């Protein structure tokens, strides 16, 4: 059974107003898990002191809990622990900027609030998932959430080698998993979109230094792999976008534009549409077609009016065309936007992470429906 937003809101209201005793300030992990299991996921998740816990401490405590309660021998109990772990690490890292990737804790250990923990917890959660038997309703959103969480943590290696083999063994025909597999392979071959040393900066991948020509051979291979997914309607638009981006990286402007145009024919997803137009604008700009560049940037900006990188590109072109009032207005609006939106292109880098909130909500709903809560 799927969970809509109203159901989730209702559940939250019920949970918050239910006569559950107020927890102490610092709860142990098992108590937090009990709260989570009781449907009070909000307080359960917030009760974890994520900055004081390392990933190892967190996951080993969860393992102790599952063994102690007998849940370890039950797929449902292990799935509950996996869901809780994913929810905790996702919540703990929402306020952590990506620049925290470069702040290594002593001894190389890092806390749950460090974004590197996303990949590690996703791997742990994947190992808790059933490996045999019929696929449960809970499994799909759990696998998808773990994929998105690992992508948010830029954990391509862990995804490719540890998570996706397990996930695809269970859901071999799931288009998003297959796309994630191709994307992880491409990341490993081509390098990340955002070089690690640049990840903490406002680094637009649409810059020459982010388009290394050395990867041309690997790009062709990645495009071939992606083309195999074009027949999957669920991901076809994103596949077009990713192929277009790879064509852009090897500076084949007409091929890139054709892909970006195809995106608009295959989806109404504003993120994909805006990203396609943003990149199309950049390609037109490189090709010297400023009118088309401006038109494409305008379409993208209509969908994401405060995107700084996009607004800056458009503003500069308008200024060169002496449309100065609008040039300044667009730029000023974007620069003053708070919180600062991430670049559209992070939708490519972080893949399915933008869906994680929804999948985790579905997981909670399924847990409730199956009487885990």
């Amino acid at each position, binding site marked *: 059974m799927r969970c809509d937003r109203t159901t989730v809101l209702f559940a939250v209201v019920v949970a918050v107003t239910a006569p559950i005793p107020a927890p102490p300030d610092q709860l142990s992990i098992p108590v937090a898990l009990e709260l989570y299991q009781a449907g009070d996921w909000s307080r359960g998740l917030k009760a974890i002191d994520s900055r004081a816990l390392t990933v190892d401490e967190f996951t080993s405590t969860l393992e102790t809990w599952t063994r102690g309660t007998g849940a370890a021998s039950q797929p449902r109990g292990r799935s509950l622990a996996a869901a809780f772990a994913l929810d905790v690490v996702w919540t703990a890292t929402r306020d952590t900027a990506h620049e925290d990737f470069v702040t290594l804790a002593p001894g190389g250990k890092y806390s749950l609030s460090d974004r590197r923990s996303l990949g590690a917890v996703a791997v742990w959660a994947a190992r808790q998932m059933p490996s045999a038997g019929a696929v449960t309703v809970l499994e799909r959103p759990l696998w998808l959430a773990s994929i998105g969480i690992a992508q948010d943590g830029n954990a391509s290696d862990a995804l490719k080698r540890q998570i996706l083999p397990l996930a695809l063994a269970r859901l071999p025909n799931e288009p998003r998993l297959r796309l994630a597999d191709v994307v992880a392979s491409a990341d490993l071959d081509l390098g990340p979109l955002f070089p690690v040393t640049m990840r903490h900066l406002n680094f637009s991948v649409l810059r020459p230094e982010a388009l290394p020509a050395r990867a041309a051979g690997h790009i062709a291979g990645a495009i071939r792999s992606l083309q195999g997914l074009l027949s999957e309607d669920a991901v076809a638009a994103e596949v077009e976008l990713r192929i277009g981006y790879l064509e852009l990286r090897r500076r084949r402007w007409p091929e890139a534009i054709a892909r970006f145009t195809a995106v608009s024919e295959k989806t109404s997803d504003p993120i994909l549409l805006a990203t396609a137009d943003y990149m199309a604008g950049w390609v037109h700009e490189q090709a010297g077609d400023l009118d088309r560049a401006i038109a494409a940037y305008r379409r993208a900006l209509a969908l994401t009016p405060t995107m700084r990188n996009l607004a800056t590109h458009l503003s500069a072109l308008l*200024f060169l065309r002496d449309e100065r009032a609008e040039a300044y207005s667009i730029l000023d609006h974007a620069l003053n936007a708070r919180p600062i939106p991430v670049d559209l292109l992070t939708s490519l880098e972080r893949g399915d992470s933008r869906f994680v909130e929804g999948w985790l909500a579905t997981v909670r709903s399924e847990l409730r429906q199956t009487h885990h809560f």
Partner: protein
Amino acid sequence: VGTVRVIALATGWLLISGALATTEAPEGEQAVFRARTDAVSVNVSVKRGRVPVTGLSTTDFTLTDNGVTQTVDALTLERVPIDLSLVMTRPEGPYREAREAYFRALRSASSVRKSLLAHDRLRLVSVDAAILGRVLGNEESLLAREIEIQDGIGVSVIDGLYYAIAWPVEPDRRHLIVAFTNGWDRSSVLEKKMLPRLAAHSDAVLHVVFWAKPGADMVGIGYNTSSSPPLLTPWQDGHDAVVEAAQRTGGAVHNATDALQDLAAIIEDFRTSYVLQYTPRGVPSPGWHEIRVRLTRPGKFDIRARKGYEVRN
């Protein structure tokens, strides 16, 4: 003449549609001039040593556009209100020397109000990873305002300077930009080569005060001349783009030996600069137009004017 000057500033140096013509003024109203198709305005600073040269007329100037001598239609030297945009690009990282150099410049710059007149406006543009700009109130401390701004990681010098350049200034005002920077930029969206192009399209005059330079010392970003080329090359590129942008507007580059003195001199220089207006003749419109200004008078003068302008096809 004053009216013409105001319109010249309104139109800027770039091409505006319409033809220059004196309109029939309704009874009781002053005659006004309409913008012309190809009016170009050029800020020109003329000094002998450190002293501005005043009292010049149109016949004292020779102006060429792509090598073709032009007739200067109008010349003004008038104390009109200034919009001063002070761009402060912050040092990246925790390097003590860089921060000390930056705050020395900032403390000096905070006294800039002494050089401003009643109707002038002061706008502060603070640049790190984020870019924030606003006009300060008369009593507002520049120093306090700057310190409020949250530290970011990365510095967007190119984007920040473009933001300053793009500031829309009313027709009856002139725009002066003074940037205190080291040119170190790793996080701008715009490519470095874009800045000179954008500057060439601007009506503003950009001066740059470097509180650190690549290769000269290590206060800029904490790296010295033995740092690896991957670090120094982008720094040098950023520095060079900023220098070229300043030159294209008719501004200049300064070293921050005494930021306050630099700033006062820059403002005074700007106030005493001439605005020449001419209609390009005998030169094809599209493309880059190189402007050269000389004096017909004998003697040694320091003449600074914008390097040219670009006309899109």
